[in-house]
C-alpha cells in the first residue's frame, strides 16, 4: 500500500522536477517533496507504524526514491545554473576593437635601437661598452690619436672649438684613449656616441651624428682577427651572412688602415643604385692600432697589438631603414620617430 503511494509520489515529483521552469519553481518542488516537512518526510514518519521487517524493506525503497529525487533535483539545479551562467556570459560580450584606454606605446630612437643591437653583439663577445664626454680635450681628440697639430687630417674634421681650449669631439676615437688609459691592456671595448663636425646641414650632412668606435688590444691581434669581428658584427646587424672586403684606407691612428666594404645587400654585388653600381657598400674604417697611439696611452707596442674600427652609426641606421634625410634624427619629429 505505502509502497504504491511512494512510487506514485516519486514518479510525480520527478515529472515536476523535469517540468520546473525556473530555479524558484524547482526549489518549491524540493521543499514540497524533499523538505523537512515534505512528502518524503511524512512517509518516513509513517515508517514507524510498519512491522519491523516491512519497515526495513519500505525504508530502503524510501531511501532509494529519495536519492533518486535528490540526484535529479541536483542535476536540474545544475542545468539552471549552467544556463544562467551561459546567459550572463553571453550578455557580457563587448567590442574589443574599440581602442584601449591609456597612452599608445612609445618607441626608442632608431639610433638607440641599432646601437643597442650592436652593443649586445659586442658584449656577447666579451667587449665592454665605454662612454666618453661630448666636450673633449684637444689631446684626446687629436694628439693622442697620432694627429699632431699640423696634421692634414685635422682639416678633414671640421671642429667646433669651445672656450677653455676644448672641442666637441669630432669622432668617438678619444674614448679609445680613455679606455686604454683607464683599463689598460688587454682590452676589448666599444664606444658608441654623439660626435660633432662643424659643417653646414643638409639632407646628407649633419653637424651632430653618431659613431660607434671599437678597439681590441692584446698580445696577438692581427688583421685576420679584425676581419673576424667585423664580419660577426655586420652579420648580426644585417641579420644575415655578409661578405666583407678590406682595401687600403688612411686614418692616422691605425697602421695599416683599411676601408671595409660589404657586398651590397640590395643587389648582392651585381650593381644597383644603392651601391652606385660597384657591388660594394663602404661600411667603416678600421686598422691595426698605430704604435704611436699605444705608446701615448702608456702601452708598449712591442708587447701589445691592437685593432680599432669606427662605424658611422647614423649612416648605418639610414641604410637599415632607407632614411634619406639625416636631419630627421635630431628633428624631434614624432611623425618620424614613432615609425620605429
Amino acid at each position, binding site marked *: 500500500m505505502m509502497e504504491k503511494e511512494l512510487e506514485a509520489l516519486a514518479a510525480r515529483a520527478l515529472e515536476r522536477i523535469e517540468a520546473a521552469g525556473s530555479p524558484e519553481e524547482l526549489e518549491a518542488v524540493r521543499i514540497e517533496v524533499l523538505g523537512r516537512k515534505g512528502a518524503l518526510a511524512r512517509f518516513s514518519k509513517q515508517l514507524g507504524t510498519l512491522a519491523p521487517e516491512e519497515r526495513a524493506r519500505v525504508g530502503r525503497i524510501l531511501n532509494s526514491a529519495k536519492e533518486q529525487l535528490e540526484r535529479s533535483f541536483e542535476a536540474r539545479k545544475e542545468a539552471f545554473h549552467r544556463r544562467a551562467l551561459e546567459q550572463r556570459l553571453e550578455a557580457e560580450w563587448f567590442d574589443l576593437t574599440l581602442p584601449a584606454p591609456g597612452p599608445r606605446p*612609445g618607441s626608442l630612437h632608431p639610433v638607440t635601437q641599432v646601437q643597442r643591437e650592436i*652593443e649586445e653583439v659586442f658584449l656577447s663577445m666579451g667587449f665592454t661598452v665605454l662612454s666618453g664626454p*661630448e666636450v673633449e680635450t684637444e689631446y684626446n681628440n687629436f694628439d693622442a690619436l697620432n694627429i699632431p697639430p699640423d696634421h692634414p687630417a685635422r682639416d678633414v674634421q671640421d671642429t*667646433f672649438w669651445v672656450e677653455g681650449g676644448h672641442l666637441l669631439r669630432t669622432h668617438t676615437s678619444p674614448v679609445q684613449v680613455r679606455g686604454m688609459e683607464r683599463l689598460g691592456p688587454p682590452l676589448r671595448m666599444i664606444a658608441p656616441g654623439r660626435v660633432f663636425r662643424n659643417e653646414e646641414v643638409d639632407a646628407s650632412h649633419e653637424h651632430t651624428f653618431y659613431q660607434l668606435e671599437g678597439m681590441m688590444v692584446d698580445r696577438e691581434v692581427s688583421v685576420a682577427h679584425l*676581419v673576424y669581428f667585423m664580419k660577426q658584427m655586420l652579420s648580426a646587424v644585417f641579420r644575415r651572412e655578409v661578405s666583407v672586403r678590406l682595401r687600403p684606407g688612411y686614418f692616422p691612428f691605425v697602421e*695599416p688602415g683599411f676601408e671595409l666594404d660589404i657586398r651590397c645587400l640590395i643587389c648582392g654585388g651585381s650593381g644597383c643604385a644603392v651601391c652606385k653600381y660597384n657591388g660594394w657598400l663602404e661600411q667603416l674604417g678600421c686598422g691595426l692600432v698605430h704604435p704611436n697611439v699605444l705608446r701615448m696611452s702608456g702601452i708598449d707596442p712591442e708587447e701589445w697589438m691592437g685593432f680599432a674600427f669606427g662605424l658611422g652609426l647614423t649612416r648605418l641606421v639610414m641604410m637599415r631603414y632607407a632614411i634619406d634625410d639625416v636631419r630627421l634624427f635630431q628633428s*624631434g619629429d*614624432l611623425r618620424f620617430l614613432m615609425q620605429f
Partner: protein
Amino acid sequence: MKFSYNWICELVEGVQVSPKELGHLITMKTAECEAVEPFGEHLAKVCAARVVEAEPIPGTRNKKVLVNTGRYGLKTVVCGAPNCRPGMTSAYVPAGVALPGGEIRCLEISGVVSDGMLASGAELGVNRDAEGILELLAEPGEPIPGCRPDWVLEIDNKSITHRPDLWGHLGLAREVAAILRLPLRDPVRLDWLPEAAADLEIEILNDELCPRYSALTFEMVSVQSSPLWLAYRLETIGLNPINNIVDVTNYIMAELAQPMHAFDRDTLRGNTIFVRTAAPGEFLVALNGETYKLDPATVVIADARGPVAIGGVIGGLDTGIVAGTRRIVLESANFHASSIRKTSGRLKLRTDASMRFEKGQDPANTVRGLARAIELFQEISPGIRLSGGLADAKRELPPPPRIALELDWMERKLGREVAREQVVEILRALAFGVEEESPRRLLVSVPSWRATRDVSIKDDLVEEVGRMVGYDSITPQAPLIPSAPPPANELRTFHHAVREMLAAQGFTEVYNYSFVSEETARRFGFDPAEHVAVLNPIASDQGLLRKSLVPGIWKNLLDNSRHFDSFRLFEIGYEIHKRPGELPDEIDHLAAAVYEREGDGRPGLFELKRLAECLMPGCEVRPASARPFEHPARSWELRWRECALGRLFELHPTLAAGRAAVLDVDLRKMRELGPPPKRYQPLRRFPSSAFDLSVVAGLRDLAGDIEKRLVELAGENLESIRFLRQYSGPPLPEGKQSLTWRLSVFAADHTLTAEEVGAIRARLIDGLRAAGYDLRL
C-alpha cells in the same frame, strides 16, 4: 685627383688590363678609385681631312667645303672658320658623333647640307682654341695626332693625403707596375741637367720652411700654344692649357707631383732669388689677379725689390709668363708641408701646387722636375736654350734610417704567412731597398718620396706587403682569448633600463642637439655667460652648449603640437656645465613631457609623477619656487631618498599653447642613490583591521604632509595606507577640503582587539588635531 689611363700606360710597360679593371685593382691595393670614365671617346671617329675645295657661300661668312676624309671618303661640309682654305689639313667630325658640346648631325646651313663638320680644338675638347679649325700635320683618314680616346681614373683625394707621390702619374704608375708585376718606365733622365755654372744666385733665408730651391734659366724662349698632345693631356686630367711654358710646368706637376713655376726673367730685379718669410706689410698681386696681404709666417720668393711669388702656393702677376717673354727662370722647389697648409688656409687659396706641397713632397724631386723640363722645352719651344747651369740651394737632409722588418712579426700582424721572396719582390717593386740581414729579418730603406712622412716604421711596411698580397687573401680568424664577462658599464645599463621603461609607458624618445642659442637661453632665464660658449659656430643656434634639456624639449613640444593634440616624449641627454680650468661637467638627465592641447593639465602632471614613482619608488614632490619657464603655481621639486634630484612642472603658459607637463631628473644622482637595499619582512601572521579617516584641511594643505603625519602616528601598527577621496563643498566650510584615507593596522604577535584598534584610531585623531586638523567622524 684625375689620372689619365693612357699616361699610366706610357709609364708602365705592357699594361693589358682594362681601365675599369685597373681602377678596381688600384682601389683594392692603393687608394680609392671613385670613378673610371671615358674621355675623348669621340676622337676615335674624328680623323684628319684635307680641304680640296672651299667656295664662299654668298651673303654669309661660311664656305662650302669639299674635304677628303680618307676614312669616310669625300664629304661636303659647311665651315665658317676664317682659316679654312684649300690644301690645309684639319679635323673632320662625321655626322652622328657626339662632341663635348653636343651631337653633330647632317644639317642644312646657308642652303648647303653639311655632312659632318670641320672642328676647332675647343670643339673637340683637345685644347681651348676656338679661333679657327685645327691645322694638322697628318694624312687624310689618320687619327688626330696625340689625341687618342682616353679614360680618366678619379682617385679620392682623401685616400691619398698621406701619399705625396700619388699626386703625380709616375707615383700611381709605380703602384700599377707593382700590382701588375710589370716594369716601370721613369720618364726622367737626370743627364739632361747641365753641368755649367749657374747664372742665377739663390739664397734661402729659412731652410726649415724651404729645404730646397732649384732653378734653371732659359733664353730664346718662344711663348705659344702647346702642341695638341700636351694640351689634350692637360684637358684630360682637368687642367687648363695656357701656353707652352706654363703647360710644361703643369704637365711635370701632374707627372712627377713636383709643382714648378716659371718667371719672366726680364721682370725680375737683380740676379738673386731670395726665399724668405714675408716682411710686415708686404703684399703680392697673384696670377689670379687677387691681392694678398702677406704675414711673417708666409714663405715668399723675392727678388731684389720684393715678393714675386708666395712660395709653394701661387706666382705673382707681374713676373708671370706673357706672350713676349724671352727669358725665364724655372723654379722647382720644396716647401715645408704644414707651413704651406697653414698659408693656404690663411689665404683661403688652395692651388694645385699647395695641395701637393702640403702632403710633404720629396726634396730630391726638384732636380728631376728640372731635368724633365729641359727635355720637354726642347720639343715645345724650338730654339730655346739654357742660359746657365743648375742653381740649387738646399739643406742637407740625412737619408732616412733603414727599417728592420721581422717577417714573423709581420705575419703575426697580418694574420697570414707571406713567403720571404714575395715580401722582397713587393718591397722592391715599390722602390724600397731591401737587404736580407737574416732569413727572417730584412733591412729596408725607404725611397725618398715615401720617406717625407708616409713610411718611417715597420708597421708602415706591414701595410705595403699586406695591400700588395691582397687583404682578401687573409682568412678571418677568431682570436684565442680568455673568456670572461666584460667590465660592466652601469651608466649605459641604467640609461637603457630607463629608456625601456619610458617607451613602455608610452613615451617616444627624441634626440636634441647639444647646442642652445643665446636667445633661447635668455628666454628660459638662463645666463648665457654660465654656458660653455662655442667659439666658431656656423649658425646662430649653435652659440652655446646646453645646460638644460628643457629648451630642446620645449622646441619638440612646439613642433609636434602642430601635428598632434596629445603626445608624450622624452630625451636622455647631457647637461653641460662649465668648470673653470677643466673639462665641463656633463650630467646625464632625463627630460620627459606630456602634452595635451585641451584640459586642465593635471592628468599630465600626475602621469609624470607616476612615471617618477616607477623610476624612483617612494619619491615625493615638494612645492618649489618656479623658475621663469615654469607655471608659477605648478612647479614642484622631486625628492627621493632625502635628496632633491629633479623638477616636475607645467611649462609656463606663455611658452606653449595647451598644457605641457615636464619632468626633468638628474640621472646621475638617481643612479648614485640607487634603490634602497631590499630586505625580506616575515609575512604577517595575524589578521589586520581597517578603518577610514576623513581629515578636514585647508584647500592648499598638502595631502602628502597629512599622509606622512598619519604614517608617523600609526607607527609600527601600520600595515597599509590608501588615499580614498578628496571632497570640498557643503557641508564643509568655504576654503576647506576633506581628505579620506583607509588605514589597515595590525600587531605582529596577536590579533588586535576592538579596543586596541580603537586606541590606535584615537591616537591618530589626537595627533592630527594636535597638528591643527579637524576630522569628520
